[in-house]
């Protein structure tokens, strides 16, 4: 569904991504793990068009067997329209907008009024707290509630591919478990998920496949279980002496 081919990204004088290649298959949950500064967020921002790669291609096939597009030439809004939602690091809800408005902004490109109100209703069923706080400024929500809002907002676009950057960041373990259970549910319902996580234990437990990113290039890949059992990964990312 999504293939990053030999991506190079430069930020100023820094060579951030050095020939990164990876693939996300339709229906999969794929995790990208790695240390701080390895280039995880840069990878996601390259997919969603906020960063233009210096070279390489981001090949995306929205429909099985359908035409392929190179996202590296498209503006972010075109990429959103192609069915990719990116839930950014640190949640980034629009804190001065109301909860409801945040959700509406998430469905910004849609014009089907009934569909939008149906999905608004679905968000409220998924997270009843959002209905209660519908008219409050999103900035007044707790961290966990903001994460729920950020995910619900991303879903308002009805994404085929959902990109999540550090969904566990700064959240209490109970909330993290809830968010991860929800990701699994969304995936079971047909959404492909590509996520970046610091929390490698959770990520490898959830993901069908995973990649390990080091200094801008993929150094390891495999199924979630394989990587979780790999001694090098255990030492570097899972915090256990194997």
């Amino acid at each position, binding site marked *: 569904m999504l293939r990053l081919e030999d991506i190079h990204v430069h930020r100023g004088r820094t060579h951030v991504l050095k020939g990164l290649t990876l693939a996300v298959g339709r229906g999969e949950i794929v995790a990208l793990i790695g240390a701080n500064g390895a280039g995880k967020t840069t990878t996601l921002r390259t997919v*969603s*068009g*906020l960063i233009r790669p210096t070279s390489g291609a981001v090949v995306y096939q929205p429909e099985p067997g359908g035409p392929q597009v190179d996202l590296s030439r498209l*503006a*972010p*809004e075109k990429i*959103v*329209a192609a069915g990719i*939602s*990116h839930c*950014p690091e640190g949640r*980034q809800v*629009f*804190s*001065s*907008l109301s909860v409801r*408005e945040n959700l*509406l*902004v*998430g469905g*910004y*490109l849609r014009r089907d009024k009934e569909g939008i109100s149906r999905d608004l209703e679905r968000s409220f069923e998924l997270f009843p707290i959002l209905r209660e706080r519908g008219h409050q400024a999103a900035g007044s929500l707790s961290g966990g509630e903001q994460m729920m809002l950020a995910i619900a*907002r991303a879903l308002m*676009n009805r994404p085929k591919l959902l990109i999540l950057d550090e969904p566990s960041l700064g959240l209490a373990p109970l909330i993290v478990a809830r968010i991860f259970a929800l990701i699994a549910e969304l995936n079971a319902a047909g959404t492909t998920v590509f996520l970046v996580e610091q929390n490698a234990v959770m990520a490898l437990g959830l993901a069908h496949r995973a990649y390990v990113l080091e200094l801008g290039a993929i150094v390891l890949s495999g199924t979630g279980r394989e990587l979780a059992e790999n001694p090098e990964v255990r030492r570097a990312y899972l915090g256990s002496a194997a």
Partner: protein
Amino acid sequence: MSGGYLTDLLVGGLTLGSMYALVAIGFSMIYGIIRLINFAHGDIVMIGAFVTLGLVQALDLPLPLVALATLAAGGGMGLIIERAAFRPMRGAPQVTGFIASLAVSIMLQNLGVLILTAQPRNFVCPDWLSAPARLLGANIRVIDLAIVASALGLASGLMLVIKKTRLGMAMRATAENLDTARLMGIDVNRTIMAAFVMGSALAGVAGFMWGGKFGQIDPLLGYVPGLKSFVAAVIGGVGSVPGAILGGYLLGMSEVLFVGLLPPVYAPYRDAFVFGTLILILLVLPNGLFGTSTEERA
């Protein structure tokens, strides 16, 4: 002091404040959305004034049409400036945009002098606008009331657009977080352009008002009101539209009261007074009346 004189001053303050408020709104909107202090914004007032003069004098159009044309001219000018001067610099450091706006301002002023000469021109208004209005024995004209009423109408209309429409929602989202707005599918170039067009349209109308109120216009007329409206925007909390409106009225009112209530020898210091007020207010409220702190916005 007669009650009539006080009413004069109050209406004068409201009129001046209306113009400052209309110009300040644009400063605030543009800063709010791309963190650009657009020093060319005041010169749109000048362009609005000359476009009105041209339309009234040369074509003798009816007033509502002239007002619409001034809105369109201001908005069009904002569109051109954004496309030509600011969009190519998107992503450059803030100071680059700041310098570019100074360059645009100087260019517009010099173009004005080149085409229109620096000679001030009389700004003719239809007679009924210049006619005196009877209000509590005060010495005011119909145009004063027209300025206040239309400024309040335009300002509330704009606030409604920002608060209630899809475009307004996109503008607020873009102002808060440009990258995240793009991740929602918002074409931020379009929302930025909309902010320039709306803000500049209001500045254009302020030019019409300025000419009507003071009777004379010249190509450099935008400079001082531009600067003062910027002060008004800062007082209100730059980035906040209601703040800009309130700041405009506060500034206009206090400037007129300063000149009118103190002995005439102080009158030449009105600009010093305006900037002194700014410094005082910022000492107490560093983010202005309605501003959010830079930390929150980061």
